[in-house]
């Protein structure tokens, strides 16, 4: 559970913010010692779900900043509902997290 999420009800909308720990290597940097390019290593996909339904999907490239921050707004969930998140990177490593609407 390394994806940190927050979900807060504001009026009719739920503001969801998430922070994922990841190096987000661009693949353009050169290793100073060996002179070789450091291979790209980044999150490719982030999915948000509510009540078993996929409600949000984001495809990320290496140009998203290190430790990606994403925020979006939802209509529907109410206080106490759980929004769950999952991510996968280009090596296939998965991560997940959840937030309870406050």
């Amino acid at each position, binding site marked *: 559970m390394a994806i940190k999420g927050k979900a807060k009800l504001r009026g009719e*909308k739920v503001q969801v913010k998430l922070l994922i720990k990841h190096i987000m290597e661009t693949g353009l940097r050169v290793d100073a010692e060996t002179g070789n390019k450091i291979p790209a290593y980044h999150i490719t996909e982030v999915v948000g779900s509510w009540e078993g339904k996929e409600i949000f999907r984001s495809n990320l*490239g290496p140009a998203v900043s290190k430790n990606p921050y*994403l925020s979006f707004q939802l209509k529907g969930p109410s206080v106490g509902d759980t929004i769950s998140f999952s991510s996968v990177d280009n090596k296939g490593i998965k991560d997940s997290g959840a937030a309870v609407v406050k």
Partner: protein
Amino acid sequence: MNLINQSRRILLKSFGFCLSLPLLSGKLFASWPEEAFMSTEIDKAIGELYGHPPQASDLVKLKVPDIAENGAVVPISVSTDIENVESISIYVEGNPNPLAATFELSPYIVAAVSTRIKMGKTSNVVAAIYSGGTVYTATQEVKVTIGGCGG
């Protein structure tokens, strides 16, 4: 015996095919759009993603700083009043591969997203919104200062 074996094989084969079909189509829609992310031009990346040419629109609200002191972390917000938005995507003209991120929205999502992106140098940032077969875009320049002392 031989006949039974043969028909069993056919049955097994067709089972395998039926099982792989939904998996395949699911993957097609969900897979990372590599062609668009590898594209070196914004218009090509937009065409790759949506299959339609972009048109500039006041309805797309793009919020980025005029000056970014740190190109590694540039906050960006995109929102719109356009209805039934299916997708939002973000591009940096000066990056080797302009496409930074895409957001696929469901009817539960309000068309307003924020994230943080990397910019190699001063350039235009473009936000594209896809709704009902049309791609609407907004463009704004962001000055990237190295070391925070102007340049």
